[in-house]
C-alpha cells in the first residue's frame, strides 16, 4: 500500500494549482509544500485508488486520485455542498487529505495485454490514472485505445491529454464522442455504447477499463458482451457514500465487499457475485 495516512485524521495539504476542465469540473493539484516552496506528494496512489478530501466545517468526500509525482490530482465535478465550496477555492488554499484508500487497478496482471479504456463524463478521471500509468510504462502494455464520451464538446475533460499528449503516444488510439454536438464540433456524435459497437475494438488479448455513469456502464457492458469480451477481462469502478475509508463505518458495502477497502475497482465476474445494490 505504500506510505500514506490511512487513519481517520487528515493532514493539511495545499492546493497548488487548479485547472478549469469544463464549466462544472476542475482538477485540483494537492501537495505538501515546504518552506522553500518545494512540493511533494502527500502520499502516492496506484491507478484507481482514492483520497478523502476534507474541508473543515463542511465535510469530507472521497475522490479518485491520480498520482502526479510531486502532487496528487483530483478532478472534481460540482455536485453538492462540499464540491460547490471546492469550486470556489483559490490556489494556495489548504485543505485536509487522507489516503490512499482502495485497491486500485491490477496493473501487473494487465501487463502484456492491449487495453481498451472506456470513459464517460467525469468517469474519465479514474480512467486517466490508468492511462497515465500505461503511458509511463508503455513497453509493458500492448495497443491502447481510449473511447471517451461527454454530453457536449464543452464537457470534455482533460482536453490536452485527449488531443495532444495521448494521440502522440505510440499505438494509442483516442476516439471521442459527444451526446450533442455544436456548430464547431467536427467529431463523432452519439452515445458511448453505440460508438464502441461501431468502432469494433480489438477483443483478443485485451482488457477493458470502463468508468462512467451507471446508465452508460450498463449499456456499454451489453455491447462488450456482444463484441465477445469475457467478464474476467472487464474492470470497472464503483461509487458509494463513504465516511471512514477503511471498511469499518459500514455504509459503502455491496454485499460483503466494502467499496472503500476492497474496491473501488471490481472485475466484472467478481461484481456479478455481489448483490445488485449500487
Amino acid at each position, binding site marked *: 500500500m505504500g506510505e500514506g495516512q490511512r487513519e481517520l*485524521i*487528515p493532514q493539511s495539504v495545499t492546493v497548488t494549482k487548479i485547472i478549469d476542465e469544463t464549466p462544472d469540473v476542475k482538477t485540483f493539484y494537492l501537495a505538501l509544500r515546504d518552506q522553500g516552496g518545494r512540493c511533494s506528494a502527500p502520499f502516492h496512489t496506484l491507478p484507481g485508488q482514492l483520497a478523502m478530501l476534507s474541508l473543515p466545517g463542511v*465535510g469530507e468526500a472521497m475522490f479518485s486520485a491520480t498520482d502526479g509525482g510531486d502532487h496528487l490530482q483530483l478532478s472534481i465535478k460540482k455536485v453538492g455542498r462540499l464540491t460547490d465550496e471546492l469550486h470556489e477555492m483559490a490556489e494556495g488554499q489548504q485543505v485536509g487529505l487522507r489516503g490512499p484508500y482502495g485497491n486500485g487497478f491490477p496493473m501487473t496482471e494487465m501487463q502484456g495485454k492491449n487495453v481498451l479504456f472506456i470513459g464517460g463524463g467525469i468517469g474519465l478521471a479514474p480512467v486517466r490514472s490508468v492511462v497515465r500509468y500505461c503511458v509511463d510504462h508503455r513497453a509493458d502494455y500492448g495497443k491502447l485505445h481510449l473511447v471517451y464520451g461527454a454530453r457536449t464538446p464543452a464537457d470534455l475533460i482533460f482536453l490536452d491529454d485527449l488531443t495532444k499528449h495521448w494521440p502522440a503516444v505510440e499505438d494509442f488510439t483516442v476516439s471521442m464522442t459527444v451526446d450533442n454536438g455544436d456548430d464547431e464540433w467536427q467529431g463523432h456524435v452519439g452515445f458511448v455504447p453505440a460508438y464502441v459497437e461501431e468502432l469494433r475494438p480489438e477483443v483478443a488479448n485485451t482488457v477493458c477499463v470502463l468508468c462512467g455513469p451507471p446508465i452508460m456502464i450498463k449499456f456499454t457492458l451489453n455491447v462488450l458482451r456482444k463484441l465477445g469480451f469475457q467478464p474476467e477481462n472487464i474492470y470497472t469502478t464503483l461509487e458509494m457514500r463513504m465516511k471512514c475509508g477503511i471498511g*469499518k463505518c459500514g455504509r459503502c458495502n455491496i454485499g*460483503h465487499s466494502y467499496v472503500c477497502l476492497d474496491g473501488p475497482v471490481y472485475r466484472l465476474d467478481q461484481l456479478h457475485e455481489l448483490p445488485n445494490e449500487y
Partner: protein
Amino acid sequence: MKALAKKNLADALALLAGQATVWVPAKVAGVTRFAPWSPAVTLDLEATPPAVSPKEILLPETESLYRYSAYGMDVTFEAVEQEVPPTIIWGIHSCDVQAILCQDDVFLSREPQDAAYAKRRAATTLVALACTTPGPDCFCTSMGLEPAEHASTDVQLHILTDGYGVEARTARGEEIVARLAEKGLLVETIEPPAKAQACTRAVNPEGIDKKLVEMFEHPYWDELAATCLNCGACTFLCPTCHCFDLTDHRRNAHEGTKIRCWDACMFTEYTVMAGGHNPRPGKKERVRQRFMHKLRYFPERYGKWQCTGCGRCVARCPVHIEITDVIKEVGEVTLDG
C-alpha cells in the same frame, strides 16, 4: 475451583476499581446498563441480559477524533488524544463477549486497524458472568453460544449458591484472580457451578447464510419491511452493530471538532450520495441490508454470525420485527428452481 463469596463482591470490585475503571451492570434511571463501579452504584447482576450492552465502552456513542481550524488559507488538524484507563468489564455475558469478538473482526482484523478502538480494546479485561436463567427474548444457544461460559474471556465467573466460581482463562485473567486471592477474597470450593437453563426461544440458523445468497431479490423483504419505522432502535441496542458517522461539531465558523458517533443502516441519509443517488432508498433495502449483514455478509467476510442471540432488538422493536422470526422464515422460504 476458587470462589468469590457474594459478601466479598463489593470488596473485590473496590480492590479492582483502585487500579482500573470497572464497568458493572447497574441500575441507572431504572435501566440496567453498564456503569463504572463505585460504592454508590446499584449492581444488577440478575438482568439477562442488561437492557443496554457494554458496546459503548469500546465504541463510545460519540467520541472526538481531532480538532480542526481554518483561518484564511491555512487549515490545521490536531488529534484529540484519548485517555484510556485500564478497564475491566465485570459481569459481561457470553452474548456480549461474542459481540466484542465481532467488533474485533471489524476494527482489528484487517489493515488498517482502527487506532482508537485498538487502544481501548488493549486496555480492557473481560470478566464474564455465567448466564444461567436466560430472559424471554434470549436465543444465544441458537447462535452457537454457551450461556454458562465463553472461551474468549479473561476471567469466567460461574454461579454458585452463595457466590461465584472464579476461573482465569488468560494471563490477564490470572493477574486479576491473583490480586483477589492475595487480599484473601477467594476461597477454594468443590461446589459444581450452576448449569444454564435452556433458552425458551430457539431457532435454527444453519444454512441460512447460504440460502440468503439466493434471496436478495425475494419478495420476502417487502413483506418484512412493511411495518418497519426505520427508528434504528435495533441497531443502537445491538451489541454487534458498529456503523458510525464522522461529522463536524462546529465551535464557530473557523474551528471545531471531528466527532465519530454511532450511525445506522436504518436511516435514509446513511447511504445517500452527493447528487442524490441512494443505493438503499427505501425501507425494503434498508431492512434487507440489516438482516443480510447479520446473517450473510458478515459470515461471508468474517466467518461468524453477526448476531449473538442477546435478544435486545427482539425486546425493543416497536413493531415486533424479530430476528428470530427472520431466521425461521428465511429457513422456510421456498426458492424457485
